[in-house]
């Protein structure tokens, strides 16, 4: 047994696992076994080459100061939404809205796992387990085994307003492990919003099952806290003609790794995953990692990855994106773009785009670039009287536009754009 496996076995001993009903105990035990087999990640693992897992797996998280937003309202505050609040990873019923709504059932994870029979049984840890192959994601298995809170959401119709998960951070040493399960029934539609600093260390898994013809929109804002460490996983399974769209804005954060694992099982489905990350090393360390794995195992499915990063003062960006097209996944349309804008020589970006294609009638493309601000464009703008800092911000927002365009709702897109603009204004020079 190697050290990582020993560690893994130790942290997931049966006594340590949260108490649940029978089916959930089984699911947690399965996850614990998976983790013990895989071992915790080490830098020798191919997918952890550029992101150090050490601080994510340390027994005790590094403390992270609670960020002072100086009165800035939380992202999405002006959007009519159903808000569910977690404080340092613990559900806060008082701060949350009433969880009932037309076409939607929301329960706390603990209530779902306590029930003998529950629909979430077919998903909890199930999509995560499917996503472990061919690339191991030990921290997701850890989450399934150890999650202490979360929500399970079942959507049966078109929900009138977005559901917003708001993660508040109040304790400088909190170590939050949340696990959500979302099931969109046939033809159902949901927009999920996520924001907030969450915890000193935040582990989150979200399993999303999108049934035939259903539509799932996800917009997430991470930041502006400087010292957080976060490891998040999204596992999605897509049915026939379903739609999955996920956008993440990340600003600041010592270490953030967002993994997104999508499996197309139904024909003619669409999945878009996008991200816009802004990091300034002057705020403290910044390391942002987007790791995506998309498996096309159905006919005529379309996937699109658009990831943009703006980095300066030693900020680091990582992108690992893979498109796997199975032999029968004909007419697949796979697109992947990952670009970074390095505002100075100290910033760095590592990218590993991968295509693995076994079908012969597909369109797949990928492009990864990193570059500096376009001096020609900058001069052109300045020659029209636009001061250098405003011109630079304009060009940065233009660079991010492709990713932001992936947000379908104009109001939410405008909100994200405003936040990015404000961040840039605070980080000039």
């Amino acid at each position, binding site marked *: 047994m190697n050290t990582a496996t020993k560690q893994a076995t130790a942290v997931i001993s049966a006594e340590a696992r949260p108490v649940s009903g029978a089916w959930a105990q089984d699911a947690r035990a399965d996850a614990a076994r998976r983790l013990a087999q895989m071992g915790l990640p080490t830098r020798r693992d191919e997918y952890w080459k550029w992101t150090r897992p050490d601080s994510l797996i340390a027994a005790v998280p590094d403390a992270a100061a609670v960020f002072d937003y100086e009165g800035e309202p939380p992202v999405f505050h002006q959007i009519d939404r159903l808000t569910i609040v977690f404080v340092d990873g613990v559900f806060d019923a008082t701060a949350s809205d009433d969880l009932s709504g037309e076409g939607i059932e929301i329960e706390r994870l603990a209530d779902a796992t306590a029930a003998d029979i529950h629909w979430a049984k077919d998903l909890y840890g199930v999509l995560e387990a499917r996503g472990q192959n061919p690339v191991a994601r030990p921290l997701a298995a850890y989450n399934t085994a150890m999650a202490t809170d979360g929500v399970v959401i079942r959507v049966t119709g078109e929900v009138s307003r977005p559901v917003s998960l708001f993660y508040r951070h109040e304790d400088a040493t909190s170590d939050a492990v949340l696990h959500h399960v979302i099931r969109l029934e046939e033809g159902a539609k949901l927009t999920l919003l996520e924001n907030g600093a969450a915890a000193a260390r935040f582990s989150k898994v979200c399993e999303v099952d999108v049934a035939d013809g259903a539509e799932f929109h996800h917009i997430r804002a991470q930041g502006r806290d400087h010292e957080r460490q976060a490891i998040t996983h999204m596992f999605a399974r897509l049915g026939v003609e379903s739609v999955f769209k996920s956008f993440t804005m990340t600003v600041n954060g010592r270490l953030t790794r967002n993994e997104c694992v999508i499996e197309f099982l139904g024909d003619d489905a669409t999945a878009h995953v996008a991200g816009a990350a802004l990091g300034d090393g002057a705020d403290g360390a910044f390391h942002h990692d987007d790791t995506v794995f998309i498996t096309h195992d159905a006919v005529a499915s379309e996937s699109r990855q658009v990831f943009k990063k703006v980095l300066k003062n030693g900020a680091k960006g990582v992108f690992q994106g893979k498109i796997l097209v199975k032999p029968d996944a004909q007419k697949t349309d796979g697109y992947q773009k990952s670009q970074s804008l390095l505002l100075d020589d100290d910033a760095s970006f590592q990218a590993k785009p991968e295509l693995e294609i076994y079908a012969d009638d597909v369109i797949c493309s990928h492009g990864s670039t990193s570059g500096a601000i376009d001096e020609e464009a900058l001069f*052109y703008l*300045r*020659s029209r*009287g*636009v001061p250098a800092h*405003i011109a630079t911000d304009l060009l940065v927002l233009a660079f991010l*536009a492709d990713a932001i365009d992936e947000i379908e709702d104009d109001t939410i897109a405008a909100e994200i754009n405003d936040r990015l603009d404000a961040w840039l204004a605070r980080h000039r020079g």
Partner: protein
Amino acid sequence: MLKINNLHVKLEEEDKRILKGVDLEVPAGSVHAIMGPNGSGKSTLSYVLSGRDGYEVIEGNATLEGEDLLEMEPEERAAAGLFLAFQYPVEIPGVGNMTFLRTAVNAQRKARGEEEMSAADFLKFIRAKAKELKIDAEMLKRPVNVGFSGGEKKRNEILQMAMLEPKMCILDETDSGLDVDAMKLVSDGVNALRDQGRAFLVITHYQRLLDHIKPDVVHIMADGRIVKSGGPELALEVETNGYADILAEMEVEA
């Protein structure tokens, strides 16, 4: 309006002198043209005046209404009233033409201590100007110069000039890449802006643009200097005989 005295400029990166003592004065209300063979330094002059990186002034000076241009940042020169219509307008994906223009107009107003233009006023203003230049609403919405034809790019330059209302307009080979109709449109746009308070410096290879934008003075530039100045007839002479005669004559005089 614009005064250039004994301007010597070299490339920053290499020891190559491009301007070798340019003297030029363009008074308010006048249109001056600069003609000259390739490599004579015409475009360099326009870039140095507008503040592009990559050049080093080794001697001489340039002032706009008495203000030292060469000490200013590009945006300060613009706010002071200088405008360069680019030979190759830059494409800026992701920045809408309208956003770009509104940002520019308001930045200049702010720099001059004037009030910013409201969105409604701006819209009214730009629509009127765009109509004159046959620029449709679609073109205003598109990203700056992206997917524009050569003629559209040049018309867009003139639109910017009309919106920013500069005092000193430099047109760098605005006729290049234009067909006859587009040249007429662009020239009409320029002519509409001619007035007593504004001066133009039109840089061109060919006399044909000067049929539309009638200059008061024509300068011939060669090897980094103004070698000859005269009335509009000088442009006709170039058109007929090329630069060789003039250059030969200068050699003789020298």
